[in-house]
């Protein structure tokens, strides 16, 4: 865990050493040093740093040019577009705008409309750092795998300030039977750069979240790149074979369920 590096030793805490073996069992903040009933200064500042990093992850802008250059190395055309959200603060308050394409995006997509098996969409969601770092490594494995199996892949679409459902609009406009959207997840304190992949068969305006499959926590310390790419490919094959996605596919891989889907999807 990266923030363990900053966790300082806890002086004058006789129980501190006793917690060392227990801390190996979980990344949870257990056995923290106390001052009275309250947190000791070191634990207080560790937490504040982790929160600061998570906040920075939410508010850091995507370096679109850099990511585009990386993605172009995959050999597919890369298009860029924006959602209807004007800026990050509007994006956070208006999920509906993040699900819609800016009007300027429509003409870009129309130029490339055709018949595709799958559309690949990348958007920063709630963590630009997540897709900046993890999107290209996952696609570097996924794209050749799909190409070998004869999938007709649409141009890669890099969308600024999108939510999960914007993938439906992109796929519909391009004429794709399915969509994979890679999106930065809600940053947690221990993982500010987690990426999610949402997959949908026959995406369109009628699509609900129950019709999506999700692979979450994609990062080297969570779901690794190769694992994520192979699970995405597996789900795409299943979706195409059974002509559906979402809850009905859940049984084939119980680890694909989003862990934060209870009250509201992290970035849906």
């Amino acid at each position: 865990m990266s923030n363990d590096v900053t966790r300082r030793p806890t002086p004058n805490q006789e129980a501190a050493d006793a917690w060392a073996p227990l801390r190996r069992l979980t990344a949870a903040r257990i056995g923290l040093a106390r001052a009275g009933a309250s947190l000791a200064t070191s634990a207080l500042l560790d937490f504040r740093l982790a929160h600061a990093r998570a906040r920075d992850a939410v508010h850091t802008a995507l370096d679109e040019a850099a990511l585009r250059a990386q993605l172009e190395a995959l050999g597919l055309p890369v298009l860029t577009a924006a959602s209807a959200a004007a800026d990050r603060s509007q994006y956070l308050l208006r999920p509906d705008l993040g699900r819609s394409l800016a009007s300027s995006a429509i003409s870009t997509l129309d130029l490339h409309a055709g018949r595709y098996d799958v559309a690949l969409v990348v958007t920063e969601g709630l963590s630009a750092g997540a897709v900046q770092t993890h999107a290209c490594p996952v696609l570097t494995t996924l794209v050749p795998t799909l190409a070998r199996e004869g999938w007709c892949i649409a141009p890669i679409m890099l969308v600024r300030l999108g939510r999960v459902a914007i993938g439906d609009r992109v796929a519909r406009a391009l004429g794709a039977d399915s969509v994979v959207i890679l999106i930065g997840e809600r940053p947690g304190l221990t993982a500010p750069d987690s990426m999610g992949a949402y997959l949908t068969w026959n995406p369109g305006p009628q699509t609900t979240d129950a019709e999506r499959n999700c692979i979450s926590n994609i990062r080297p310390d969570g779901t690794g790149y190769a694992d994520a790419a192979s699970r995405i490919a597996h789900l795409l094959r299943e979706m195409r074979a059974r002509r559906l996605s979402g809850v009905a596919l859940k049984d084939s891989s119980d680890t694909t369920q989003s862990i934060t889907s209870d009250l509201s999807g992290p970035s849906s």
Partner: protein
Amino acid sequence: MYNATVAGNRHTFPDIVALLAKASPLRSGDVLAGIAAESDEERVAAQCALADLPLSRLLDEHVIPYEADEVTRLIIDTHDRAAFAPIAHLTVGGLRDWMLSDAATSVALAALVPGLTPEMVAAVAKICRAQDLILIAAKCRVVTRFRNTLGLPECLSVRLQPNHPTDDPKGIAASILDGLLLGAGDAVIGINPATDSPERAHTLLALLDDIRCRLDIPTQSCVLAHVTTTLGLIQKGAPVDLVFQSIAGTQAANRSFGIDLALLHEARDAALGLRRGTVGDNLMYFETGQGSALSANAHHGVDQQTLEARAYGVARAFKPLLVNTVVGFIGPEYLHDGKQIIRAGLEDHFCGKLLGLPMGCDVCYTNHAEADQDDMDALLALLVAAGVTYVMGVPGADDIMLGYQSTSFHDALTMRELFRRRAAPEFETWLQRQGLLDAANRVRPRAVPSRFRALLDA
């Protein structure tokens, strides 16, 4: 049609739904739904009109039609006219004044519970200041029991929340150990499982039951799986103490959660049949949160605070042990910042307590909301002043599974010391027996007792 003239300007509100929505203090979810007041003046005008509204109108004009929604039917069909009689002549503003008055004792407020509807308490909340929400709630007494007694005067209980991203039993046990040593867990030891797999939930239930029995802890456990999962596990003989479910204030939102009232009754009956409670049989555990109906597109144009109160109307039909508003989890598109989260937390606790519920609050926020630990300290302290039944205890306030920040074991202990609150009496006796209290009755663990450490060897 409702109207109010303020500063020479006449404002009109076409129906009760619009009046309630426009009178609600500003929050992003109502703006997102397009139902919030257009200006601050319009909001106050709506509050003026709402204050003059006779309470009885809220029994006649339903925010969601009776025919279309089983939550409305539950609220109307179970309303107790006799209990309502003493306030039947009052307006919403008049009810606020009465609740603040010396006549509104704990006993009088308790007698009123079956006569109040969610819409009435939601309406009063909208015209209350924060201090009113605190003062009135602090007069309410709600006591519930399963293996211990929750909600007694001067008590503050804690749910121990030992979540782990892969449900690793040893990782969970380590967090439980940490929480118990810091005096947490009297409300419940409750795990949010990382998946909804029944096998996984069964394993976790067995783990919790084993720890509880080996340490002889006077508390209850819960795996917060979907109610259908829990029902299936009861039938398989799993050790189920409490039945958990997320609930909302409309039939359509509940359907999006995969539940209805009949299913909740079925699950409660099944768990009652296990007879696992020792001092009482309150065994339902509900979680709610403003914005959940809107996020399911099941809000019928009704504001999120009114719908939240209606979720409590659902909860009280099932005599729960615990109800918890997970106030800041849903995100900034519903509650934008610390100010909105604080206000919502106080409103939810107030409405729940007036409706006779054992209200706890997950004082929490996500990293994309404009909030931080200072905001949470403020809400936590205000809720403890308001007599909140219980709060969450998460190791270091960082839930590594759900990816949000709640309150820590330390936060809860600090509040117990600051406000002279104690754990549930049975649990406090247990803490004493484990040698975890100092001479001044404060939780001050010296080391990890070997009996506790042995839990990790299994």
